[in-house]
């Protein structure tokens, strides 16, 4: 459990939190998501998936956001311990 387990937000199971590490998006797209609260180190909690599996609902700084799967794949995170084992 020493190494950092880097993954994308898309692979985080519902009900679990993860720490934002990096946005692999264009500068304009990254800027927009950061303005909506996704700065580095922010905790992102995956709440649920839409009935058809896409988009997913996440909790960011107390606000609920819906993001498409393709965007979630570009959000690189580190799962938060404890949450991941639950």
């Amino acid at each position, binding site marked *: 459990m020493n190494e950092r387990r880097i993954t994308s937000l898309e692979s985080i199971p519902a009900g679990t939190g993860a720490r934002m590490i990096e946005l692999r998006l264009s500068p*304009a797209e990254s*800027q927009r998501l950061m303005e909506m*609260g996704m700065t580095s180190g922010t905790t992102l909690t995956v709440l649920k998936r*839409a009935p058809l599996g896409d988009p997913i609902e996440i909790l960011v700084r107390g606000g609920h956001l819906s993001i498409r799967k393709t965007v979630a794949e570009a959000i690189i995170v580190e799962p938060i311990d404890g949450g991941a084992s639950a």
Partner: protein
Amino acid sequence: MSATTRNEFAIPHIAIAGNPNSGKSTIFNALTGLRQKVSNYPGVTVEKHEGVLKLSESGDVDVIDLPGIYSLNPRSLDEVVAHDVLMGMRIDTPPPALIIAVVDASNLERNLFLTTQLLSLGRPVIVALNMMDICKSMGFELDVEELSRKLGVPVVPMTASRGEGFQELTAAVENMLLHPRSPDDVIELGEHASSAVADVAGALVKSGLVSEKSSAGEALRLICTENSLSRPRYASVAAELRPHVDAARERLKQNGLPWYAVEAEARYAFIDKLMSRIRTATNPTPDLSDRVDRWLTHPVGGPIALTLFILAIFISIFKLAPYPMDLIQEGFGLLAAWIIDVIPPGPLQSLLTEGVIAGVGGVMAFLPQIMLLFFFIAIMEDSGYTARAAFILDRVMGRVGLHGKAFIPLFSSFACAIPGVMAARMIDNEKDRLLTIMIAPLMCCAARWPVYLLVAGAVIPSITILGFIPLPALVLGSMVIFGVIAAIGVAAVFNRTILKGESTTLALELPRYRRPHIKTLLHVMWERSFLFVKKAGTVILAMSILMWALTNYPKAPETTTAEEQMKYSIAGRIGSVMEPVIKPIGFDWKIGVATLSSFVAREVFVSSMGTIYDVDTNDPAHMADLQSRLRREKDPETGKSFFTPLRGICIMLFFVLSMQCFSTMVVVRRETNSWKWMAFQWFYMTGLAWIVCFIVWQGGLLLGWR
């Protein structure tokens, strides 16, 4: 276009800024009451809401409700307008003397991003800390005084939906106008970022574009926003500023800071520190909003709830609307009877009764339905349900390049395309919105039903399929579905061609559920309906008169049958001239004229056919008379029945696809702010209608189905 007079500049202007869903409009409505006007900012499709606030000492002040935004960085149209108004860069809007920053206390962290940006403008700011009740019920205690101290501006806690806090807000506004005090930006940048910003800010001040006080904030925005210098407003200074901005980005990059991230990281760093000082969690209660949401977005329950909700809307529209519709029609009928009484028979009487009243009355009869739709859309918007419907359907809509929220404008268009096109405003992305507007009129609106009922009843044999489905009903249903299929196809094509481009909606906010406010609902319904009546009213009146003139003049030499008079009129002649164009799709001049006249509203087709075939259609019971009259019509070429199933289907298909509605065109013109898009829509729809009918008619002839 609203020209700004010297007088308008003389009274102070207040701008209300805030995130979407922060309760901005509620505050604006409460401050200005009914003293409001809605227009478009010149040249763009962003709506300008203005009103007047009466203050005891400062007198009247003008209040502008800016579009809801998450950030001041000018990228979307809404952001550009808000930014330019606040910076005093628009010639049509005076610079605000004061900014009211509306903040949702229950979503404080993310709302504070924009708030801290507003502090960088060098203008007095008052924070309206709204939704305090929800914040409390969530179990949070806020230290309002500390928040005010840290931001350096007055903070007024309020619950706008219950009318709490307005006295304090007005007092704070009055006080600030009398003793204006501009705050300083709270952002703390590192050494490299600060000097990079200072360099660009210096160049900005030198260029004369911005004041000293607002230069640092603007410089930061120029550095962090991609293509920031490409905006037309910066054209004159772009060459001068570009080296500075490039150098600043290069310097940040060398120090390991992505240039586009600097502002957001710094502002949220401040917000993180601030939040830990001002917010304490007390006794959190189970959240009703979350519990409701668990059902409304449930994998099974969600789609079921959505379907039931839409069914309920349609049932209530079709159950409720007929009463006021009948009243309106009766009213217009009485008016016509009165005119016949007082004005002797002749051109004037005919103009007023058959032209003005028949035309305007015909469209106004749809007003109750339009108003009800606006009302239901407002419920969905105000309660926060729109975003959930989008969440559930995003996958499906996304397939053809549509925004999840496009669903609501599109289903509204099943009753009437006008509220549908206007509701497309809820989509914040310009490209997604345009695509929705382009396909909305393909949905089967209520005005098409009378046409389908007349034609299907006349030409489709009333036999049953599988023992229980009447064939005419099956054909009707197919027409509705065909419209949807056409819309999907068109959306997929446009999305890959003329409306290509990345959709910029990266993240959609799912606001908390709220109990809709009846005052807000009525206000929205009234405002939207009034806009429609105002915009379309004059055009409908003019078109009704024009259509009347075209079908009545010139007068045939002596008393002739209605059909001969129609043939003699300009419309009849246009129909005859058009015959080479419409014959290949199975239309003769009579169908052509009736189609032409249905531009005022599609269902006018029925009464025009009635006029041409001399059957009174004022009474719905006479629909059957007209149908049997149509069935008796002989084809001069074959000697058999003229209105064959094939011809009938071509007529219906034409009505499915063609843009046959002036009112919708007027609304599309307003909502896209472009004659070009309006014309394009007419050409593609009517062109598509012609091509499809051509294929069906000619194909049918080849197969010997005539």
